[in-house]
Every structure is written in C-alpha cells, then in structure tokens.
C-alpha cells in the first residue's frame, strides 16, 4: 500500500515537471506568446483564490463574500512595498528585484491575515450568516480606503501622485510563470495538508453540524477564525502576484462583483473540493479570456454556460471528490472500497 501513495504523488510531481518543462520550452520558442503566458499565470492566481475561498466557504461552511477585498489588500500592500519602499522599476535586474518581491508577497499575506483576524474574531463568535453581511461591508470599506490612500512621489524633478481613485500604476512586472507556479503548488499542498489533519477535520465537522462539533469539545470560534484567516492569507498572497502581473491596481477590484467571480469558481468546482476549485478557476479564466473577441456577448454566453452547468451538476463539477494525489493514503482507501 505504501507504494500506491508514492505512485499517485510521484505521477503528480512528474506531471508538474513535464507541464512546467513543456510550457517553458514552448514559450522560449515563441509558440506560446506572452499573452497566452499571462492567461496561464492568471489561471493559477485565480486558482489560489478559489481554493483559499473554498477552505472558508466549502470546507468550513462559512459564507464569506469579501474574498476580493483580501486579495486587493494584499495587492496594494505588495504594490506599495515594491514601488514605494524598494523603488523597483522595469530597469531593476530580476535577481535584485526577486528577494524584494518575495518580501512583498510575505508582507501581503501577513497583512491580509491580520485584517482577516480582526474581522473574523468578532464576527465569527456570532452564529448564523453575519459573516456574509460583514464581508460585503468589508469589500466596500476596502474600496473606500484605497480610494483615499495616495502618495506624492518625487520622480527626479517632477512629483507624481500614486494611489487614490486613479489606482496604483507602474507596478513592476515581477510575477513570472515559475514563481507563480511555485506559489500555486505550495498553496495546494498547504491547504490539502491542513484539511487532512485534525484541524481540517474540525473545520469540516463544524460545517456538518455546528452543535455536535461544539459538544465534541471543538472550540468552534477558534476553528472558524483559523479557516478564515488562512483563507485570507492566501487571498493576500494571490493579490500580490496579481498586482505584479497586471501591473496596476484599482480600488474597485476589491469590490463585491469581483468577490462573486471567485464564489462562482468555488460553487462551480464543487464546495469542499480542492480539485474542483482548480478546474473551475482554470476553466473560467480561460473561457472568459478566449471569449473576449465577441465583446459584451461573452457575459451572456458566460451566464448561459453557468446556468447549464449548475442545472446539470448542482454539486459542482467535482462535488466533494478529489484527484487521488490530493488525498492521503488512509483516506484514499475509503474511495477504493466504496
């Protein structure tokens, strides 16, 4: 049985290496142009956001509608750090910029985690769906806050305004395929390991029956906050990556509509399935991008597509199933038996 574990995970690792190799080679030979590479990177960033939101909404059974708020928080934090603190520009050599960017990513995650904690702690002590209301409010507050935060930067002779309603522009392009893929894979591993541990089981138990979880000695407030903070952290990290690929941020990107996009990915993929969130994030990002040529019509098509999928598969694409390599050995035996 031990070999089986190694096999599925080994195949997954092998698959990752092969995909990474192929994409890199194709890119170097200009078969995949920069535009396609951008979409691939966006797919992975959206997958980080969907999986981390799934941890909150799908696995723990909370209802957060403010994921984009945490994303934009991380984005702004990282953007401010690279552009204003470290003053990274397009001319900065990558090997110099990379450590600064890593610091910015970690800071983005930390700040989002802190914000998540400050919001989660008071709200998650209450039962019911107060979290939904508060996170909607949070999205709006974040938008307003970033509308107000602006700096004057001395650009060698002339003063430029940065931030505020005009957004934060001039963020250096630092998110490349390799880096985003590393963060993406790490995110999946961390969240998967969290879920298949006593902590993750506690979260799922809360989703299944809050009263029973409480009476089985689980500190439900603690675990709700833990899931919420962990999810927010990864949203912040994803925001940092996003800021450094699209190279500008705008306060409205933290709003409710953006959060709904991530909610759709989670529900479409399946509540409580990491695999499902990844598939849905990849699929929806690619579809909405490739439908761009037909203009406004794509939103109609996008909507119809969603309606059909939800009618045919109400539990989402994957339901609660996972790819075998995402399930530890002991749990996988369950699926083999059934």
């Amino acid at each position, binding site marked *: 049985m031990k070999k089986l574990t190694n096999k599925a995970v080994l195949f997954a690792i092998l698959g990752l290496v092969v995909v990474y190799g192929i994409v890199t080679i194709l890119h170097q030979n200009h078969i995949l142009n920069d535009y396609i590479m951008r979409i691939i990177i966006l797919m992975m960033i959206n997958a980080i956001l969907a999986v981390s939101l799934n941890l909150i909404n799908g696995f723990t059974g909370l209802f957060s509608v403010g994921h984009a708020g945490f994303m934009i928080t991380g984005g702004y934090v990282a953007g401010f750090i690279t552009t204003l603190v470290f003053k990274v520009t397009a001319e900065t050599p990558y090997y110099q910029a990379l450590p600064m960017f890593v610091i910015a990513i970690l800071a983005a995650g930390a700040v989002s985690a802190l914000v998540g904690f400050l919001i989660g702690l008071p709200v998650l002590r209450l039962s019911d769906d107060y979290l939904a209301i508060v996170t909607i409010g949070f999205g709006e507050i974040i938008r307003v806050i970033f509308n107000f935060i602006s700096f004057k930067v001395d650009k060698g002779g002339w003063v430029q305004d940065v931030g505020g309603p005009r957004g934060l522009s001039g963020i250096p392009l630092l998110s490349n395929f390799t880096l985003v893929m590393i963060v993406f894979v790490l995110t999946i591993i*961390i969240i998967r*390991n969290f879920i298949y541990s006593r902590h993750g089981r506690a979260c799922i138990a809360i989703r299944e029956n809050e009263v029973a979880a*409480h*009476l089985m000695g689980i500190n439900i407030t603690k675990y709700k906050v833990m899931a919420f903070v962990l999810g927010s952290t990864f949203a912040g990290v994803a925001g940092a990556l996003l800021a450094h690929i699209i190279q500008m941020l705008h306060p409205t990107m933290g709003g409710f509509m953006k959060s709904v996009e991530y909610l759709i990915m989670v529900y479409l993929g399946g509540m409580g399935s990491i695999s499902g969130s990844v598939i849905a994030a990849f699929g929806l990002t690619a579809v909405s991008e490739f439908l761009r040529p037909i203009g406004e019509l794509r939103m109609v098509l996008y909507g119809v597509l969603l309606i059909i999928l939800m009618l045919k598969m109400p539990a989402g694409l994957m339901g609660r199933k996972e790819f075998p390599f995402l399930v530890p050995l002991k749990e996988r035996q369950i699926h083999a*038996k059934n």
Partner: protein
Amino acid sequence: MLKIDHLTHYFGGLKAVEDFSIDIQPRQMIGLIGPNGAGKTTIFNLITGVYKPTQGHVYFDGEDLTGFKPWRITQHGIVRTFQNIRLFSTMSVIENIMVAHHFRMKAGLLASILRLPSFIKEERETREMAAKLADIFGLSDVLETPAGSLPYGRQRRVEIVRALVTEPKLLLLDEPAAGMNPKEALELLALIKKIAEDFKLTILLIEHQMPVVMGVAERIHVLDFGRTIAVGTPKEIQNHPKVIEAYLGEGAKL
C-alpha cells in the same frame, strides 16, 4: 462527582426545569425518566452548556461549570449523545469518531502542514484506536461509510462511540435505545453497562422504555413538568403513586 444544585430554567415564561438537584457519585448509573416534555433533555442541555440556567449551579469534580461554553465542558470530561441524532453525516464513520478525539490530540498547525513524523504517528494511533472502539460496537464493516447513510440503530452506536473517544468521565445518554425494540434496547444497554465498567464511566441515562431503565439504573429520578416527583431505586419508582399518576393519569392502577 456531578452535583447539580437547585437548577431552574425558563423558556420565556415557561418553566422547563424547576429546582432540579442531583448528586452523582463516580461509577454510578443513574436513570432520568419522565413523560414527554418533562424537561429531561433540557437538563442535559443545561449540564453541557447549550443553555445557560436561569438559576442554580452545576458542579463537576468540585468545579463550578455553570455558564461554560459546551466545548469546555466536554474538555472537562462530560459528554453526551443526542436524542435526535447529530452525526457529521457526510463524513465517514471513522472520521466521525476521530473528530471527537480532536482535543486530545496534540499535533500543531505547523506539524500538520509539514506532515512531521509526530503528526503521522498520532494520526495513525488515533485511527487505530477509533477502529478498535468501533469494533466493540459492531461497526467495523462500515468504518468508511458516510455516517448519514447508516440505518438509525447503527447511527446511535456511532454516536456512543464518538462520545466515548472524548475520554469522558461522565457520559450523558439521551434515549440511546429510542426506536429500537425491547430486545435490541436491552442488548445495547448491556453493552453500555459493560463499557461503563471497562472505561470506569459514570452514566446519566434518559430513557423512555421503562423495562430498559429499570434493568440497568441503580437510582432513578422521575421528572414531570420540570419538577422532580420521585427519586429512588427502580423498585421504589415502579410502585410510586406519583409516578404512576404522571405516566398513566390520576386514578390509574398498575
């Protein structure tokens, strides 16, 4: 061990429990009976912290637990099962059991995410312990089945096993034999009695079926409309005029 002092609880203007007192010594098995709506389950909810009592106190091992959150009371060693089953229905039977062992486990967040050897060892030990207990209750063939898809009687057994893995000192059983025929009920109670001896448990038992509770409890408290109307050995209770009145109506004869 468990000492309840003049416990009173109102739902709005309704007196659900009035002036309830009980003193349970270690290793005792006490029955709590009464007609529907007598306040039995409310007492369980008060002990386990689901409700806060309007008046009165709950002491456990000399400590005042009144007003504690349910999870803290469980961690102190009081655990219950539910009359209307509350399992984690999409989780497998073994996971249901493992969840309840949660607060006895030590693996921290970092150890879990990094899959340190200590985490793997603890996880394996918990799984083996859960499987062993499930086996005692005849659940070893359904370990990997979603708990919600089991028949009623077996779900009750899962609930009892789940309660046991929290390693309680006091076990509160809320009608564990509900929905079973007298023969099945007696079998289950015999099993519970054996478990109580093996695990050195103290048990407070709510039961509807008189013969069941008569056979196992050493002392019985009878409730009616929230008031304790009789306390005594099964024999005394059986012939107590107030009990007969509460169950069968005034003037009835057994």
